[in-house]
């Protein structure tokens, strides 16, 4: 790699990469994000390499290991370009057939295509409903580039926004564009990035820092991981532009140690950017100096809080500071520090390139652009989805997510990570908008979206989040530590059938304390799950407390399993699956459960064939006396 010393050098490189040094048009793109790697995408890609070689196509067809496609549930995803034929759930053993049919004979392999509700096989990525209703501004590049090759990024227009900012715009002009675009923080708070940048820019001090928050730790969410893994340069480019605008000399990327691929790809990206002179001294010959350090998180959820994150980078225990001075004025090493989330930074190059009016053309009055959600739970299609702001939750759940699995009834959608709230059916037409979600007792958060159906108990769900937060807080302040400890204790009692009159009111009092008196945002928002559950599903709490009944039949202490003697066909599946040998009977005659031995693991319920459905969950006759700590 030769160092690029000017905007012209960068343009010349891009010219070369798209003409004389262009990679083959024909390409097998194998998703190599963590999701697909878990389903053996690596072996699959290796098989394609061998097959391309064997069938004599190695020179004319490129094998590209790309970033995450988002449809992880159906991975590994393989897309044949330029025909855009999309295969799902591809195995290494399918490689020979795909290379033979699709690449050599231009025939599609029907069985690996997406099958829609009517049984029609869909060939192209954007025909698949999961993708059709998305607006993939950020995630789209994931499918086109190899994250380990800076040339792929440059060939796709990468670093043109940096070049534009450095040579055609003053820092004030970049700031004005970001402010006008009304880019709001994607990490949770939704604070306007432009305003934050301006505060840091204006704050007194020669040394300033810009930071990337990649301490994504919400259960079930992986938007930031996929962006860092799949397109690290987009975040880096945004960060350099931010540093230029703010006047920062050094940047930090705080990434979870538990994201090994994201760490690797980020480190490779930094090295390659340095070699090209896009980082370091005199970037592109502009006279601007800036470099970036990767800091690996030690595994505390609370370190995602801005002041805790900075404390952790300083080498101390990552817990929030007791200060009322913004980190944009006094942050890392007590210097002005601008922290934004991965997704926020990734939006910056797009805005600089295409202008703030373009960005503002998408979304609602106060929420512009797109947002990536991690759509999981009881929907048919799960994965990462990028949608324009303003789309309704109903469209995400039903059009993109394909509705609820197994024709079950929708119960709630939980947005915003562990401290988000539950939104019921009646609020499904709510648009995805920072303020609308907040005003309805939930939040955008960093983009977790968990769909719950009639089989989910809302008391148990609230208990799950409180349990998470109680263990993941820093434990410094009394409202959060003790408030959550007692909330968890009360909720544990309720789900165990030991709830008492007055518990609901006590929970509400604790929620109030958390919101008003906690030391940081983790605590102030920790009341959301309980408050939202109490607001929309109070009857479920009352059923647990008063009738010792779990309406969704989830809480183990309030249900028991029984075998319908009429329906049981006498297959021994349930008896074989029972870990405590509580199921007795002889084959071909109805089985029965000895309640005193049953630990209510539900294994029998799961293995009983769908056609038979003889194992029933029924309300427990008498709540079991179990000890709850």
């Amino acid at each position: 790699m030769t160092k690029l010393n000017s905007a012209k050098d960068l343009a010349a490189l891009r010219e070369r990469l798209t003409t004389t040094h262009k990679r083959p048009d024909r390409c097998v793109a194998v998703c190599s994000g963590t999701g697909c790697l878990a389903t053996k995408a690596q072996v699959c890609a290796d098989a394609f390499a061998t097959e391309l070689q064997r069938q004599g196509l190695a020179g004319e067809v490129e094998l590209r290991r790309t970033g995450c496609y988002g449809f992880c549930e159906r991975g590994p995803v393989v897309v044949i370009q330029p025909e855009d034929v999309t295969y799902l759930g591809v195995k290494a053993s399918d490689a020979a057939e795909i290379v033979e049919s699709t690449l050599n004979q231009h025939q599609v392999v029907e069985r690996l295509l997406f099958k829609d509700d009517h049984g029609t096989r869909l060939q192209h990525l954007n025909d698949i409903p999961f993708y059709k209703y998305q607006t993939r501004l950020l995630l789209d590049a994931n499918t086109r580039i190899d994250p380990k090759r800076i040339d792929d990024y440059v060939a796709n227009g990468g670093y043109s926004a940096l070049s534009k900012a450095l040579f055609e715009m003053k820092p004030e002009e970049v700031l004005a564009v970001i402010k006008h675009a009304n880019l709001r923080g994607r990490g949770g708070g939704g604070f306007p990035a432009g305003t934050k940048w301006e505060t840091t820019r204006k704050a007194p001090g020669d040394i300033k820092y810009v930071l990337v928050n990649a301490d994504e730790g919400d259960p079930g969410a992986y938007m930031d991981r996929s962006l860092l893994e799949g397109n690290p340069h987009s975040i880096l480019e945004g960060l350099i532009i931010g540093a230029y605008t703010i006047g920062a000399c050094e940047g930090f990327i705080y990434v979870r140690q538990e994201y090994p691929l994201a760490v690797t790809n980020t480190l490779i990206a930094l090295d390659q950017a340095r070699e090209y002179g896009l980082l370091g001294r005199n970037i592109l010959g502009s006279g601007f100096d800036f470099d970036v350090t990767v800091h690996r998180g030690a595994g505390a959820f609370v370190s995602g809080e801005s002041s805790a994150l900075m404390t952790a980078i300083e080498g101390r225990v990552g817990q929030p500071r007791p200060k009322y001075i913004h980190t944009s004025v006094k942050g890392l090493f007590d210097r002005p520090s601008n922290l934004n989330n991965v997704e926020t930074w990734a939006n910056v190059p797009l805005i600089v390139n295409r202008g703030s009016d373009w960005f503002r053309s998408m979304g609602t009055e106060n929420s512009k652009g797109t947002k990536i959600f991690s759509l999981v739970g009881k929907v048919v299609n799960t994965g990462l989805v990028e949608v324009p702001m303003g789309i309704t939750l109903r469209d995400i759940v039903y059009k993109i997510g394909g509705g609820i699995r197994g024709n079950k009834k929708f119960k709630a959608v939980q947005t915003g990570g562990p401290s988000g709230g539950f939104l019921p059916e009646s609020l499904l037409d709510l648009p995805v908008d920072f303020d609308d979600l907040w005003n309805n007792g939930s939040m955008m958060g960093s983009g977790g979206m968990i769909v719950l159906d009639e089989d989910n108990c809302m008391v148990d769900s609230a208990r799950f989040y409180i349990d998470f937060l109680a263990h993941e807080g820093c434990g410094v302040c009394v409202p959060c530590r003790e408030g959550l400890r007692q909330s968890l204790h009360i909720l544990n009692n309720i789900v165990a059938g030991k709830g008492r009159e007055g518990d609901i009111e006590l929970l509400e009092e604790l929620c109030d304390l958390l919101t008003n008196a906690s030391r940081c945002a983790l605590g102030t928002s920790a009341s959301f799950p309980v408050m939202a559950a109490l607001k929309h599903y109070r009857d479920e709490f009352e059923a647990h407390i008063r009738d010792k009944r779990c309406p969704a039949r989830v809480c183990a202490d309030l249900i028991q399993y029984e075998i319908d003697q009429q329906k049981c066909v006498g297959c021994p599946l349930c008896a074989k699956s029972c870990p405590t040998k509580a199921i007795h009977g002889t084959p071909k005659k109805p089985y029965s459960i000895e309640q005193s031995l049953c630990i209510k693991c539900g294994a029998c319920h799961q293995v009983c064939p769908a056609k038979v459905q003889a194992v029933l969950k029924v309300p427990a006759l008498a709540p079991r006396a179990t000890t709850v700590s």
Partner: protein
Amino acid sequence: MSDHGFAKGEAMKQVTLTIDGRQVEAPTTATVLQAAKSAGIYIPALCHDERIKPFGACRVCMVEVTKGKRTRLVASCCYPVEEGIVVKTDTEKVKKIRKLVAELLWPAALPLALELGVTSSRFSAPRGECSLCGLCVRYCDEVKKQNAVYFEGRGIDRELAFVPGVKVDCRACRECFDLCTGGWIMNEASKAFE
């Protein structure tokens, strides 16, 4: 680390704020708690000690601060004074927070609880004898520079512990024993250093 440091020697710039209806002057480096104290206005606090840095953990010193049109609840031990802010130290909201905190810590901060009129707790998982106010940890670190005690774990698993193999004998020093809000340090030190 001099954000909310304390005025030392030189003449500091002063600001005027209102606390409970009274005009109070304080140096710009002071916290609301310090300003109140200097004016003889009492704000209860558990984890605060003038010799060590503010911690903001117990939230007993919460007050209502109005700045411009916005009123918010803040921990007065950490909140820096500002020209023209209006502070109320004894509103219904504030009293409610303090009482609930004392109830949550029951019986670890008994004297404070009794002072606030809390004589029992509705919570069935009592805190034990340590309130985790951290006075001992911070005193040992910042004043004695010994670091014999530390916080172990996070969230609800957070506990106090003696640093294994520490050279000082806490029974000889005893300086933090008087700071302890629940009696934990004295009891545990005698066990740990036997």
